[in-house]
């Protein structure tokens, strides 16, 4: 069997999928020997990949394109289109983006967060400059989720899993980032994050990569169709109650990418321009356009 | 005025053993009197002074000093603040001393050239003189001196002894002096307390009737001889012995 070294965040959805894969023996069926390193923070995966300690990690295409612009030969293959949302308490008077003016908005991931940049771009079309017109608090996602729950913040833009947890606690989605994408030039839901690996690795293990992706897809299908499968992974998600687990499940299922690579890439290209315009070179690096080689096209029929 | 009525004093060493340092010790100095304590090395003299100075209160018995008495003390080692100049070492403890007094003190103790030096730059003899200057500068009511004149050459020691006598005669300073020099004791003291080996008891208490200023060389030799006779081994060799005329042992 081919060995693939995978570095994943322990609390991320990849871990959920891996559990399904292991429980159902999908890796054995695919002839793959998965060496999984569980890590505790999102950045750890990048260190693992760049330090040569992992073959495959999960992260976003923006970073891949940026690194390619700086000389690294990385590749991206869609993994999930689940994105964040702006959440407000159910009784909140805030009903539109314009209502955020003068409010305390907590933004997870800091000023370079993709969702945040896209939200700003969309708001700008409505003539709102969120950065100056709302009072922004950056911080660690779990902390901000808690701060919104406790009422210190009026609204939060957070990662989808924290949004799902808030939803289960009776919070309302003011706006999901995926709803904004059409206004920003995308034709559908774009998978923001994906498997990332080195060109050299893909060239040497093209077949293994194909089997890996197929296996991952199979796991997704199981999670998409079977509610029992969710009971099995419930402990991994840290969901405190059934409502939260249900919210995780629904958002996860929505986020399974099902579009052709070419469509994904076209939309990514459009969004890249928006990101470059909003965030500048600090975010996207030296290149003004999505690097043409960003997407992995080595799959048969891909 | 100083009253010492100690019944006993114990110390504990690092090994946890408790032992007697002082036995029963009772004596009294009237205001302005100079007492000299003489005793063998390690018998408990410094311990006694520490108790009198109030540094050690874990003792059976009591020590009475005039209330709110200013105490000037010369420890057996100089105990100067190494990070302050000679002058600052004195001024810090005697903030009220005026420049003229200090200047006079420095001249007397031959320290004028060292005013701005740090203690680390002094010879031991110089450092001990600074400690003396410090004790004098505060205009003490009670003066406690632990071997104040060692490490000084004979001429200087003699001059400083006279200086102490002058100080004590000019103001009523109750003074207690520990010394190994019978000569110093005989020249300075109004009362000499002879201590035994540890645990220290009083071997003899010798009041001296001739006033300090009036003592002749013969008087002093006589006192020394008397001390030698009473103190067993502590005094100078026997060839000094002479009949006592001036002293009258109390016990």
């Amino acid at each position, binding site marked *: 069997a081919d060995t693939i070294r995978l*570095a994943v*965040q*322990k*609390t991320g959805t990849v871990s959920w999928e891996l559990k399904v894969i292991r429980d159902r023996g999908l890796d054995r069926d695919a002839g793959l020997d998965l060496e999984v*390193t*569980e*890590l*505790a*923070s999102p*950045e*750890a995966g990048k*260190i*693992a990949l*760049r*330090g*040569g*300690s*992992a073959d495959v990690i999960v992260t976003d295409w923006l970073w891949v394109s940026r690194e390619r612009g700086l000389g690294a030969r990385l590749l991206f293959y869609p993994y999930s289109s689940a994105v964040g949302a702006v959440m407000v308490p159910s009784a909140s008077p805030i009903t539109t983006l314009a209502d955020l003016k003068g409010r305390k908005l907590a933004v997870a991931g800091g000023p370079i967060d993709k969702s945040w940049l896209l939200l700003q771009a969309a708001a700008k079309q409505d003539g709102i400059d969120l950065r100056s017109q709302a009072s922004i608090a950056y911080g*660690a*996602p*779990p*902390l901000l*989720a*808690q701060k919104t729950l*406790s009422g210190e913040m009026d609204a939060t833009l957070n990662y989808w899993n924290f949004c799902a947890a808030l939803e289960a606690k009776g919070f309302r989605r003011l706006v999901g980032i995926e709803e904004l994408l059409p206004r920003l030039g995308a034709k559908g839901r774009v998978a923001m994050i994906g498997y990332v690996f080195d060109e050299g690795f893909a060239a040497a293990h093209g077949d293994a990569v194909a089997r890996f992706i197929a296996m991952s897809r199979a796991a997704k299908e199981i999670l998409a169709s079977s509610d029992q499968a969710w009971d099995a992974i419930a402990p991994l998600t*840290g969901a405190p109650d059934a409502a939260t687990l249900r919210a995780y499940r629904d958002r996860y299922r929505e986020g399974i990418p099902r579009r052709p690579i070419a469509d994904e890439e076209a939309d990514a290209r459009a969004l890249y321009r928006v990101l470059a315009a909003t965030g500048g070179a600090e975010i996207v690096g030296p290149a003004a356009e999505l690097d043409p080689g960003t997407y992995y096209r080595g799959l048969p029929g891909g | 005025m100083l009253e010492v009525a100690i019944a006993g004093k114990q110390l504990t060493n*690092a090994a946890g053993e408790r032992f007697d340092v002082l036995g029963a010790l009772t004596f009294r100095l009237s205001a302005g009197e100079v007492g000299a304590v003489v005793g063998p090395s390690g018998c408990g003299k410094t311990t006694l002074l520490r108790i009198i100075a109030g540094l050690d209160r874990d003792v059976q018995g009591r020590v009475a000093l005039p209330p709110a008495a200013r105490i000037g003390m010369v420890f057996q080692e100089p105990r100067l603040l190494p990070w302050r100049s000679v002058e600052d070492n004195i001024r810090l403890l005697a903030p009220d001393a005026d420049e003229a007094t200090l200047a006079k003190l420095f001249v007397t103790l031959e320290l004028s050239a060292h005013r701005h030096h740090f203690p680390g730059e002094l010879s031991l003899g110089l450092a001990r003189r600074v400690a003396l200057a410090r004790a004098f500068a505060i205009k003490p009511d009670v003066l406690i001196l632990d071997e104040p004149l060692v490490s000084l050459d004979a001429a200087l020691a003699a001059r400083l002894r006279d200086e102490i006598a002058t100080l004590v005669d000019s103001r009523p300073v109750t003074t207690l002096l520990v010394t190994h020099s019978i000569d110093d004791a005989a020249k300075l003291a109004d009362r000499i307390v002879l201590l035994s080996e540890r645990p220290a008891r009083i071997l003899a208490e010798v009041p001296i009737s001739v006033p300090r200023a009036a003592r002749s060389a013969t008087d002093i030799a006589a006192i020394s001889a008397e001390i030698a006779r009473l103190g067993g081994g502590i005094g100078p060799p026997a060839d000094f012995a002479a009949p006592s005329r001036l002293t009258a042992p109390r016990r």
Partner: protein
Amino acid sequence: MLRLWSFATFLASWWVGSLLAGETLLPSPLTVLTAIVAEARSGALLFNLGVTLLRVALAFALAMSLGTALGYLMGRVRAADRFGDPWLILLLNLPALVVIVLAYIWAGLTETAAIAAIAINKLPNAVVTIREGTRALDPALDEMARVYAMPRWRAFRHVVLPQLAPFIAAAARSGLSLVWKIVLVAELLGRPNGVGFEIGTAFQLFDIARILAYALSFAALVQAIETLLVQPFERRASRWRRHA
């Protein structure tokens, strides 16, 4: 006795705090105890504590021995101090993150990289403290050792080391806590186990009870080491001090 009292005060104020703040924000002692028991049952607690302790011990030993040597050298030799000082300040002020990331990138996500990175983070603190101690050495005792032609090692052991002892103690105590703060970052960024890893994971889930369960277990462990090993040793070593 007083220690018990102190502990009781601590528990009481924690309990009141948790009542005021609510369970999710500050779990009560009981909740945390339950979490500790649960983690202990599964064996995860012991395993992670052990792994972290091992890393801490190795990095600490490395940093302290090297740091003492370098600090002593810099305190003694003027030229070494001049030369080493800019490096020292650089190392001192390089964020832990940077050192750890660079170490992982260079040496891979390995145990060696983690331990080396932690040791490098702690090293300059040990150097600085020991250098200060070396500067405060008593030259009088030094001269004594020189006149009596004391062999170098013997003089170091019996004349210098006891004078450095309070500085070494300070460096060790505050150093242990520093190592522990850094091991956490190191485990967060590139180790698949250990207390830091667990705390990082719990933080992602905002599971404060579990964070506290691990944090307090480790603190209790250090407390035990302190009471059973360090303090008796310290008492023995400072017997000579005059007790006031």
